[in-house]
């Protein structure tokens, strides 16, 4: 038996799992409908796929949510997992599920997938026969993704960096890399049985003034970590940044460089997709304004040429949205996409060049780390600040980089910390901003720049 299989048996003999049948699951994946695989849709469809967010505690609620989504002409269904399951606290998830079922009151902020189990969940997924995307935020997602794939969920979001640095203060980053290596291998192995399982990275990170160079570097590294384990379909992503031009430039550079680096490690047979998140920062409380923002994001996603868009709702400012509000966004976004025709092509060569140089310089610094494996190089690079994520709560993050918006609302790096931004690019970034201000005014500007859409 391989080491991986030994580890799988240990993970799946968890007391909260009801007898995992490896052979039956492999047989299910082999014979599963192509419609369940988002990788199949990416290849076959010429329109941008629309995916909302959403997860409710009980099976009935999740089923009802999917019915609403299907009525609204959804392309990809979400399965958002509750926060107890994300932290591997299956006992609490189980208790809270029972309380939710007995009291008609939601005690969980998502669907406790491990607690429901794959036999139950698979009934729902195969009934709707649409691709489902697993949304979580789990540093140790080994049991979760086994359960997901066995349920018919063939897109797995996340990664060791993007699911850790924005969410956790002190979960060990090196462990996260190893846990995610397991995820990549399991996805790669199942991909050999039918259409590929798609892996998607979480580009928004902290959604707080993260400059595109950092976003892209982390997307590329998670992509490489996944492809090197044998994953054949991968989505890089980023979220609306606040400047249409910067989004278009980011989209162009990330697509170009994703293909370049995939090719460099001999993985050009893998399919690389681009996902765009509607605005991930603080939303306006005015629900009509929120809809305007959502529509604007859809226009930008089209300009960027995204393969999939992930939607927000008009209730974003107030909490977990109702299924009605969630379905409304899907219908509205589909309508916007249908009428968005004849878009112009916008290319900003100067900005593209600057951003490309920045990303390449950081990637080179990561590759030049003396460690023997890619994940160790990336680990060291985060530890020593070659990669620095603004507003990450994690203790390993350097927190030396400072970013603000320029007059056109582009995110600019005014303090690079240890990030090896080339001199020419650094001068360019700084030249776009008023640096004569004192720190008090800059802090006030940062507060304003974070809340730009409110």
């Amino acid at each position, binding site marked *: 038996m391989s080491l991986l299989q030994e580890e799988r048996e240990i993970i799946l003999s968890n007391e909260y799992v009801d007898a995992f049948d490896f052979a039956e699951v492999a047989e299910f994946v082999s014979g599963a409908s192509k419609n369940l695989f988002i990788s199949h849709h990416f290849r076959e469809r010429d329109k941008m796929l629309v995916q909302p967010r959403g997860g409710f505690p009980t099976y009935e609620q999740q089923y009802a949510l999917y019915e609403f989504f299907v009525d609204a002409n959804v392309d990809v269904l979400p399965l958002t997992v509750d926060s107890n399951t994300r932290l591997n606290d299956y006992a609490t998830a189980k208790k809270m599920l029972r309380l939710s079922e007995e009291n008609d009151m939601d005690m969980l902020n998502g669907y406790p997938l491990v607690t429901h189990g794959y036999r139950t969940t698979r009934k729902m997924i195969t009934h709707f026969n649409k691709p489902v995307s697993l949304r979580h935020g789990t540093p140790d997602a080994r049991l979760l993704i086994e359960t997901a794939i066995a349920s018919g969920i063939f897109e797995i979001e996340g990664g060791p960096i993007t699911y850790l640095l924005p*969410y956790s*203060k*002190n979960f060990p980053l090196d462990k996260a890399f190893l846990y995610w290596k397991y995820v990549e291998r399991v996805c790669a192995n199942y991909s050999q049985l039918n259409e590929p399982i798609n892996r998607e990275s979480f580009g928004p990170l*902290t959604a*707080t003034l993260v400059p595109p160079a950092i976003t892209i570097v982390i997307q590329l590294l998670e992509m490489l970590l996944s492809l090197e384990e044998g994953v054949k379909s991968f989505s890089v992503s980023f979220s609306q940044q606040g400047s249409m031009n910067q989004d278009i430039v980011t989209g162009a550079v990330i697509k170009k460089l994703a293909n370049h680096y995939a090719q460099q490690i001999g993985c050009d047979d893998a399919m690389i997709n681009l996902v765009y998140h509607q605005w991930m920062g603080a939303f306006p409380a005015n629900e009509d304004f929120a809809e305007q923002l959502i529509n604007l994001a859809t226009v930008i996603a089209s300009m960027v040429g995204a393969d999939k868009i992930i939607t927000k709702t008009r209730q974003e400012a107030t909490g977990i949205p109702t299924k009605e509000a969630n379905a409304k966004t899907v219908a509205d976004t589909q309508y916007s996409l249908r009428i968005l025709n004849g878009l112009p092509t916008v290319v900003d060569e100067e900005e593209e060049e600057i951003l490309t140089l920045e990303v390449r310089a950081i990637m080179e610094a990561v590759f030049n780390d003396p460690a023997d494996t890619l994940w160790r190089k990336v680990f060291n690079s985060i530890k020593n600040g070659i990669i620095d994520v*603004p*507003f*990450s*709560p994690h*203790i390993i993050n350097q*927190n030396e980089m*400072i970013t603000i918006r320029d007059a056109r609302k582009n995110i600019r790096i005014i303090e690079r910390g240890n990030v090896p931004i080339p001199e020419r690019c650094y001068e360019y970034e700084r030249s776009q901003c008023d640096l004569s201000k*004192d*720190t*008090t005014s*800059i*802090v006030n500007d*940062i*507060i304003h720049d*974070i809340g730009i859409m409110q």
Partner: protein
Amino acid sequence: MKVVTGVVGNDIHVVANRLIDLSLRARGYEVFNLGVNTHLEEFFDAVVETGAEVLMISSLNGEAEGWGREVPLLKSRYSNLDDVIMMIGGNLVVGSGNTEDIVARYKKYGFDLVCHQMDLNTGLDMLQSLSEERGIA
């Protein structure tokens, strides 16, 4: 002057914490930032370890109320903390409340400066005045 700062409890709201850090440094303080999700004991231990003159605790999700009550008892277990300027700021209650009542309550818990929903720089100006008054600025 040395300042220990951080966000108390199971509160992961990091944005203000970074901005406080930045602003304190700009004003010339030596900052020991414990970040988010920090327990009360960790704050006091850090003050002892660094010899800080100021302890600045922040809270956004309102749970400081629960932790605040424990301050007097916990502080009494440490010696030599009497001269430390204790400051707390952010959103100090769950829901809404009268600022005067909130300030009075936190002063009873042993905080010298209480900045409920106050502008960051106004709070830092208050710190400056108090440290000058005590002759430690």
